[in-house]
């Protein structure tokens, strides 16, 4: 029974659960108390001193922005005690203005452009094949890899749909469905988005450890690139993952990581961040989301209708040998060598099950 290898993966999953738990604990507890603290603080403290104007206006504004101490007293838990007005907020407001924001503007066009390119590519090139099936199968993804992959894919789509509603809701959805429906949609989207965020972060960690192996750059990648990835005819050599996949992996990890970190900052603002970091977080969050969603469109295209036989690998775990020869020839060679040098066939079959 060669099941011990799966064991370690599961141990890992478990520790991730615990980790998420610990991360969420202190932060969550603070959430409710924000309003209460703010109002009681406002009531209990005296107003700003020096109201008789012994200081210059410039000085006062300076204090209001940067918090010279004693002028005002925002929430005690906050990192920016003392500051009342945030001047950078103006810049942020411009970027986030739903109607004119460049993020919304370029984001929408960018995603549309990617979709358009994919459709065009599909129409011209069609699905990439690998000739006849050989009838021999080879294990590509273990069960735990498959579970982690589809779990995060599922949550990613949920996060994407709810997140895009929040980003694009006002300019694109509101005119279509009216104010009331839009407000319902948005509160629903926001609640779901907030609740699934930590789950996404958890699964992302799982994705990272399950797919790291094979995703480091190598020399073959240059050859692969020179051959245009085989997308325009011809054969492009590749190891376990090709350059495109490696790029996707690291994009998912880095952008996903950025999404998770900035997401946490925004979930628990008074404990983790200042107003400026929150603003920055929002920008990074939106940009990272757009980058990741954009890339994911390509990934999903290639994983489904773009290349024949690829999806099977992520569902059953096995791919046809000829598929591997066409898309990941170096990897196939290694695996076949391993199989010859040891009696591993049985073991891998069990792992795949």
């Amino acid at each position, binding site marked *: *029974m060669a*099941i011990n290898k799966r064991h370690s993966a599961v141990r890992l999953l478990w520790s991730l659960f615990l980790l998420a738990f610990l991360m969420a604990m202190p932060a969550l507890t603070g959430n409710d108390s924000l309003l209460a603290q703010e109002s009681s603080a406002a009531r209990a403290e005296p107003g700003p001193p020096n109201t008789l104007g012994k200081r210059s206006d410039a000085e006062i504004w300076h204090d209001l922005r940067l918090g010279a101490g004693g002028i005002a007293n925002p929430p005690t838990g906050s990192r920016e005690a003392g500051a009342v007005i945030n001047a950078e907020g103006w810049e942020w407001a411009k970027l986030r203005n739903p109607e004119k924001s460049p993020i919304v503007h370029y984001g929408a066009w960018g995603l549309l452009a990617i979709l358009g390119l994919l459709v065009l590519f599909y129409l011209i090139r069609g699905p990439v094949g690998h000739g006849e099936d050989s*009838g*021999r*199968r*080879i*294990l590509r993804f273990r069960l735990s890899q498959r579970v982690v992959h589809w779990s995060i894919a599922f949550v990613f789509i949920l996060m994407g749909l709810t997140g895009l509603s929040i980003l694009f809701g006002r300019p694109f959805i509101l005119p279509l469905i009216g104010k009331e429906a839009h407000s319902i949609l948005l509160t629903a989207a926001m609640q779901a988005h907030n609740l699934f965020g930590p789950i996404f972060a958890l699964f992302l960690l799982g994705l990272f450890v399950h797919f790291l192996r094979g995703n480091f750059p190598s020399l073959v990648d240059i050859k692969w690139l020179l051959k245009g990835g085989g997308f325009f005819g011809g054969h492009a050599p590749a190891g376990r993952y090709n350059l495109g996949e490696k790029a996707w992996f690291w994009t998912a990890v880095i952008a996903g990581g950025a999404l998770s970190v900035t997401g946490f900052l925004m979930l628990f603002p008074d404990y983790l961040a200042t107003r400026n970091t929150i603003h920055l977080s929002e920008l990074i969050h939106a940009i990272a989301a757009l980058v990741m969603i954009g890339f994911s469109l390509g990934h999903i295209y290639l994983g489904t209708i773009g290349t024949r036989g690829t999806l099977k690998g992520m569902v059953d775990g096995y791919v046809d*040998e000829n598929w591997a020869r066409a898309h990941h020839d170096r990897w196939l060679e290694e*695996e*076949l060598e*391993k*199989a010859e040098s040891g009696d*591993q*066939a*049985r073991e*891998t*079959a*069990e792992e795949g*099950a």
Partner: protein
Amino acid sequence: MTSDTTEKHRSFDKQRDLPDEVRVENAMAGFVAEFGPKAQSWMNACVRCGLCAEACHFYLATGEEKYTPIHKIKPFEDAYALTHGPFSWLHGLLGRKPKLTIEELEEWEELIYDSCNMCGRCTLACPMGIDIASLVKDARRGMYAAGLLPDRLARIVRNAEKQHSPFGSPEDFRKTIKEIEREYGIPLPLDKPKADVLMTLTPEALENRHFGVASMARVLHHLGLDWTFCSDAFEATNFGYLSGNMELQGALTVRLIDKAREIGASMLIVPECGHAWGATRWEAAKWYGAPVDDIRIRHIVEVLADAVEDGKLECRPVGESATFHDPCQQIRRGGLEEKPRILMRALGMELREMDPHGLDAFCCGGGGGVLANERAGPLRLKAFELKKRAVEETGADHFVTSCNICEMTLGRDIEATGFDKQIESLIDLIGANMITDQPPLKAPGRGAKPKGAGKRAAGAKKAGKGRSATRRKPAAKK
């Protein structure tokens, strides 16, 4: 690394000449007859988690998902859904009789008969405690009624029905008992009108294991029991139990117990067999509608172990190390876990347990009628690899068991794989090494070489110094 995609192959036999519709109807009726609180609770509790697969040697040995235990009873479950499911009343309203398809039944014949030993290992792994072994047995009733069972099993069932036992008629039995008496020079009480103990046997013992019969007799004599064989109730195995022929199962059990009552016995002894223990000790009550309280149904291993504990039976120390194969129906499903171990200790053997052993042990692969079903041979051999590895890991000198079916199965698999261990019978070891005033067993004379027992008798003498040569030719094909 690379493995061939497995092809779907069909393998099923058909018994009797029935139109397909009748087969389907019979199957449905047979399945429905088994629905009751237990089966219904079990079927309604399954959450499809798949853990049962991780316990089944057939799945573990092949990695083929179709050997997932709960999958093996799909037609039975489907029949339940059709007749008792949430929408079954709709069929009634529409005046329809819901049915399975003949194709499904044919396809499942292999899973229900070839790939389940009813060993109950999966039960332990199931989070819901679902007893799939019982459900497979229930499902066989419908399959039998449909005439969808392996040829070989069907033939043995017909033999059992027609001529008393798969071994033969009462006349054959009497002849063989006389023959064993002559071979080993031991009196074998036969057809005593009154006796305190009714002793039964397996066909395998009568055909190929005469030394075992003599050994058991010698121990019973030694214990001073008033016992007898009966030529019209000697068969302990129950091919009704294994095949799903419930009438036969009932008839065979009732025959034994009625006979015991007739001769005024207070005890019925089940020989070295597993499913006979299940059928007689644990399922007899269902044919009488009440527990059988007047007759103690005991297993030979239990009788001997109790004698050892009571100080009535002692053995010369055999020494050396041994590992014990746990027959599922005696141990996991029979409650006798400690008994054979008491006997191993009495033999002075160093017991090296396999991993897994006891309640968790792997089945030999032949139980539940699978051995009788030649078609299942190749699959069985794959499952044997698990057992073989476990035995090898103990490094023990002897490989011992207490069930004729396990012994035959393991013997054949050892032969087929060239494994360098022999399987030995616990009772034979006791018979050869017990300390007693009983006259020694005569070595069978030259010339009239008795079936398969030549070396065994010789081994009996040498047993004191270890390895009793119990190797013998593979059991003759029936």
